[in-house]
């Protein structure tokens, strides 16, 4: 068979003749991928999230060489890594700090998407892959958190796995199946280890590849929300685009060094981060007979933990009223009769299972549903947002105010989730839970309100 005729010389030419895909992909994704030239600092967090993923994988490989997934030795083996493995403390602190850094980057990356409408047509699929990455990341963090086998690892896993027990009919059996035992035990530790080091990372890597391929097929959005592919030059390349490599690689390398300064400042000078990155209770070995007085997940889960705790018996009435109100709103909005009937019927059925005696389900179950819904609701964003423009720059100020309000709601729920339950905070969490859901569920209405500014045909760019 004849070789592919290569344009390159030497070794590269030899490889290219035999595997033309290599240089074709290099061009497609790096040297000839045209990205809008007006990216701002919000656009660095995707690359930084990949860096965090790389840090986690590399440090994880070394940790797995010394860690023992056995309930008798797990706690000791982590301290063995911290004390007796040369450089072990460094690897372990990078891994524990990396987990939080990954979430910080992902949360900021998602905020960027909300700010500039990056999830809008034609980028819905990129957003869906991204949401799946977020879900996998949560699973990865949850499974990994059991491994040090400290008190918080143990009781955190106990609380979360028990949540599955609240599902009607299959709940208790499902929880037993997940644990592989009647309490969190050695069997649970072994399977969580397996999920943490191989199953979820594989899924995560596959999703990241899909996320980037989907992005490079349609091209990147930008702070102006203008499609650069609409304005092509004589050479067929977007006039407002520049090659990803070298322009954005050198750009990202600078921001990467800033990220590394912050990252290593934590690793070397404050690895516990005041108990938020490494919880102090986790320096006590797991004791199945005595739980800690206050169980709190790591900071990145606390907004959802607050939503779970907010769902009490009394809150069910507020939730039922919210559901009913939303169903009525849908009835008045839809024009087709079947849609009206369906939305009202679904609303009534939900209310039936929320509050009507004889039918109502355990509030704990609804807590699990709300917690799940508040994560999964991100998937619907491309269809909730009905604004005629993508970017916040050309939307009414009220939209920016709502987005900032949502950020505040998210942060306050997160702060409450780290604290022990208390009456006034619980009431506030209940209000904030409804605001959280309302931000998304009412978006089809509020996103069309207000006066929009005209979107320019070309991006705005000020040379540096």
């Amino acid at each position, binding site marked *: 068979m004849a070789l592919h005729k290569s344009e390159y010389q030497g070794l590269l030419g030899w490889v290219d003749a035999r595997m033309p895909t290599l240089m074709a992909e290099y061009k497609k994704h790096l040297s000839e991928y045209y990205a809008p*030239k007006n990216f701002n600092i919000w656009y660095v967090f995707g690359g930084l999230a990949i860096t965090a993923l790389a840090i986690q994988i590399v440090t994880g490989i070394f940790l797995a060489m010394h860690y023992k997934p056995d309930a008798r030795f797990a706690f*000791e083996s982590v*301290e*063995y890594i*911290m*004390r*007796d493995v040369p450089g072990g*403390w*460094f690897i372990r*602190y990078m891994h524990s700090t990396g987990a939080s850094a990954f979430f910080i980057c992902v949360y900021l990356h998602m905020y960027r998407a909300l700010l500039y409408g990056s999830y809008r047509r034609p980028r819905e699929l990129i957003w869906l892959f991204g949401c799946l990455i977020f879900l996998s990341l949560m699973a990865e963090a949850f499974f990994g958190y059991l491994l040090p086998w400290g008190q918080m690892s143990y009781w955190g896993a106990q609380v979360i796995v028990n949540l599955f027990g609240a599902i009607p009919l299959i709940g208790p059996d499902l929880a037993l199946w997940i644990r592989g035992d009647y309490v969190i035990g050695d069997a649970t530790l072994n399977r969580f280890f397996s999920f943490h080091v191989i199953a979820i990372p594989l899924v995560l890597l596959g999703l990241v590849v899909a996320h980037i391929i989907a992005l490079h097929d349609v091209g990147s959005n930008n702070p102006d929300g203008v499609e650069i592919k609409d304005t092509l030059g004589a050479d067929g390349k977007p006039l407002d685009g*520049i090659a990803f490599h*070298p*322009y954005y690689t*050198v*750009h990202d*390398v*600078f921001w*990467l*060094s*800033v990220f*590394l*300064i912050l990252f*290593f*400042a934590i*690793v*070397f*000078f404050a*690895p*516990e981060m005041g*108990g938020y990155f490494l919880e*102090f*209770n986790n*320096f*006590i*070995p797991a004791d199945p007979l005595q739980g800690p007085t*206050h169980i709190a997940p790591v900071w990145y889960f606390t907004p959802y933990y607050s939503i779970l705790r907010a769902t009490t018996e009394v809150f069910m009435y507020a939730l039922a009223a919210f559901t009913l109100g939303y169903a009525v709103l849908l009835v008045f909005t839809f024009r087709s009769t079947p849609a009206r009937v369906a939305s009202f019927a679904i609303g009534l059925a939900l209310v039936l299972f929320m509050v009507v005696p004889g039918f109502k389900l355990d509030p704990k179950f609804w807590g699990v549903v709300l917690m799940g819904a508040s994560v999964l609701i991100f998937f619907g964003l491309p269809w909730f947002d009905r604004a005629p423009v993508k970017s916040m720059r050309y939307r009414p100020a009220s939209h920016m105010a709502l987005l900032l309000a949502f950020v505040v709601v998210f942060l306050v729920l997160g*702060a409450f989730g780290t*604290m*022990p*339950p*208390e009456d*006034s*905070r619980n009431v*506030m969490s209940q209000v904030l839970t409804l605001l959280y859901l309302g931000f998304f569920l009412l978006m089809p209405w509020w996103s069309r309100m207000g006066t929009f500014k005209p979107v320019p045909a070309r991006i705005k760019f000020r*040379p*540096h």
Partner: protein
Amino acid sequence: MQSLIDGSPIEPWCVDFEMMKTKLLAVAVFALAAVFARGALAEAAITMDIFPEARLHEPAALQNGVRLFANYCLNCHSANLMRWNRLRDIGLDEHQISDFLIFGNQKVGDTMSIALRPADSKAWLGKTPPDLSVIARARTSSEYRGTDYLYTLLRGFYRDRSTPTGWNNSAYPTIAMPHVFWERQGPREATFTRIVHRESEKTHSEQVVREVTVIDADGNANVTESSVFGDPPESVEVSFKPADPKRAAQFDSDVADLVAFLTFMSEPSAAGRVRMGVWVLLFLAVLAVFTWWLNRAYWKDIK
């Protein structure tokens, strides 16, 4: 409208608005503080004394700490995650470790384990004394640092005839551990001053009293009560009067050394970590300058 201070007339909108703003702000701050305050504790706890941090960097203090640890603690308590030869990090050589610190037939490469079996100590003492390898980190909480807690706890013992061991502790009431250092500290009189809210037996209304409990060096308690002006929150304060203040002061210093050692043991790599961190950050700062430069050089052409 008139000013409340000197009766001079003032423009009403000005006063109302300013006062309202201040009041609203005060209410908001108060509400926020209340909402974000950690959950109220069931019983008022004593405030922890501050551990003298400087001891962490004094090899002599750390060496005195490990001497006390091996002599007083390492018999009921183990440190199973700590190797003897790690003590080289605080300036001891292997001969010093094996000749002066290891009592049994352990080797310097072994961990600081003990002969007492957990099941036996549970049967004999009611509770297995916890392993102390990472205790300084484990006892840190959102309220206080682990070092301050240990420094307060080990100096908080007093005689109490009402407990099984005859000892009690101000930082950990009804602690199972007796005062192993009693000879080093000497006898002390403890005084607890509590502000207590309780229901009056006669009127069934809430009553606020100041309760002063003086426990003498033999553990006999004497309680006096007095009424309180106003409505202060529940609190407890403790003070000690040692019979031999000089001995007690020396003991405070010894405990600081012991806590310094426990802190070192909970993370032996901490000092090296901070030293290395300075160089890493200096390198990254230089790298950031160069990458900024590189970025600027490339982007110069983009118009």
